């Protein structure tokens, strides 16, 4: 592919992306959350850990825009800092899943044979756990906290990436340009890095974006169950869980953080769908 054609393709993809209002909404939501996460100390009106004992469970739209929680901490500030935790865990777990998934997928797809079947059986085994169960088992074994939660979610996601990469590698390795590179004397490493990996980047990017939504949801679920991120670190799932006991008297404490999760998940889902339709119109499945 010449550079000019590549540029034109990208230009077309960008145009397709911007023409879809839902993708743009997704992009705006994702950018907003990312800005919150990056600029949390600047944007947050209060210290997220500071307890104002006279303002316990104070209602929204008063002294605090979104009210205060059961310790008198500003909910808005905690949500903004919570975006940080959510994104750190989601991005971190994607890096783990991608690195591991590409490694397993490329080795498996390129080598084939026994190595392939052994790795794939292991991946199948990990995929045979019902949703959430594997992540629960892993985080129980590793222990709670931001890093261990990230690791557990990363391993949970790894098999899906590995399978996807493997299928792409298998279909690519017998294509003419790979055969000709091999005939020209290129080493396996060179073929993998400059001919195979660049060709499955776009489906992997799409899936990784959609997976961000899953990872955010998973982190929230694990933290809600008390296994993931621990208090006092502000995490959206943990906020919902700790506000539960006051649902009757102060429903805002545990319901407001849910909106943050919903917005983040919606943003990444819309962005991922938009990228998929823009990068490869043929892949469009859901309306």
């Amino acid at each position, binding site marked *: 592919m010449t550079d000019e054609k590549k540029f034109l393709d990208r230009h077309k993809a960008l145009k397709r992306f911007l023409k879809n209002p839902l993708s743009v909404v997704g992009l705006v939501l994702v950018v907003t959350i990312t800005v919150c996460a990056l600029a949390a100390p600047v944007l947050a009106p209060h210290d997220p850990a500071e307890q104002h004992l006279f303002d316990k469970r104070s209602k929204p739209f008063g002294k605090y825009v979104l009210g205060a929680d059961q310790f008198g901490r500003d909910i808005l500030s905690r949500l903004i800092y919570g975006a940080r935790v959510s994104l750190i865990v989601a991005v971190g777990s994607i890096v783990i899943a991608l690195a591991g998934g590409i490694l397993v997928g490329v080795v498996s797809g390129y080598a084939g044979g026994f190595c392939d079947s052994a790795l794939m*059986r292991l991946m*199948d*085994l990990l995929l*045979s*756990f*019902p*949703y*959430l*169960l594997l992540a*629960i*088992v*892993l985080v*129980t*074994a*590793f*222990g709670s906290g931001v890093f261990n939660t990230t690791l557990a979610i990363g391993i949970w996601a790894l098999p899906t990436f590995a399978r996807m990469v493997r299928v792409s590698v298998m279909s690519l390795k017998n294509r003419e340009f790979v055969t000709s590179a091999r005939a020209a004397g290129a080493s396996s490493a060179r073929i993998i890095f400059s001919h195979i990996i660049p060709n499955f980047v776009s489906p992997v990017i799409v899936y990784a974006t959609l997976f961000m*939504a899953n990872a955010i*949801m998973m982190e*929230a*679920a694990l933290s*809600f*169950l*008390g*296994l993931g991120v621990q208090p006092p670190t502000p995490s959206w*799932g943990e906020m*919902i*869980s700790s506000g*539960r006991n006051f*649902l*009757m008297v102060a*429903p805002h404490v*545990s*319901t407001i953080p*849910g909106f943050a*999760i*919903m917005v983040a*998940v*919606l943003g990444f*889902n819309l962005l991922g769908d938009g990228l998929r339709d823009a990068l490869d119109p043929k892949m469009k*499945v*859901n*309306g």
Partner: protein
Amino acid sequence: MIVFIVKRILASVAVILSMAFLVMLIMDIIPGDPAAMMLGENATPEMIRELRSQMGLDQPLPVRYVNYVWNVAHGDLGRSVREMAPVAKLIGDTLPNTLLLTAAGMFLTLVIGIPLGLISGARAGSWVDHLSRITSLLGLCMPVFWIGLIMIYVFSFRLGWFPVGGTGSLAHLVLPAVTLAAYTMAAIARMSRSSLMEVLTEDYIRTARAKGLGFWLVVWHHGFRNALIPIITVFGMQVGNLMGGAILTETVFAWPGLGRLMMGAIMDRDYLLLQGTILVFAAAYIFINLLVDLSYGLIDPRIVES
């Protein structure tokens, strides 16, 4: 057909056996000595050593694995430290509740999710379609446990229509089932919509319409039947989501099921109970998948041959 069934059953048994090994391997990573934890702070090293050998913990993992599988095959999953009862009994008491909840979730997914998607797909672009697409998109983005809390607040605290939690009557089942099914209803509605829309562009649909059949008759007889296969596939995949979601739903609604038993086991570091619940959960999931696979074989004989 019989060869196909036997093959699939053997494969499932192999998966469950390897899963048991993997779970034991992961359990080994968990810090802390189960024997020391059971005896408490005043235990002497001798007491711990003795209990370890009683529990078989001093043996290497492969030996423990073989013993465990042997015992499980005889219906013995060990004893729970916390509940002072056999793990098998505790699981037997809670599993029906989880299955009931999951079945109710599946039922709602089928009777609400699929029709919603089909109407939406048949009337693409109408306000019904827009409404159902927005609802299902939001349904995919809301955390299960959050939906549950909102349900409790609105329908139990404010309106007083349903109990806050627990089991016992049909009224107890309503909120947990709706909560659990929210995600899968949304997912299946989206799939049904796109699947039907794709089928409706086929030539035979145009032919059926051209010969004078009414629109909904065509949708039902020609569209729905052909759109069904991808819908069933997605439905099978959603069963895993339902079972995982059950853990969260049970926590929110204090539903005495397997998920809550498992969470209790995690909190108390009750190893054998935890191991047992994980395995039964996973085995139930594999079993349902086996049923889905076998039903494909019944629907489409070509799958059996390949």
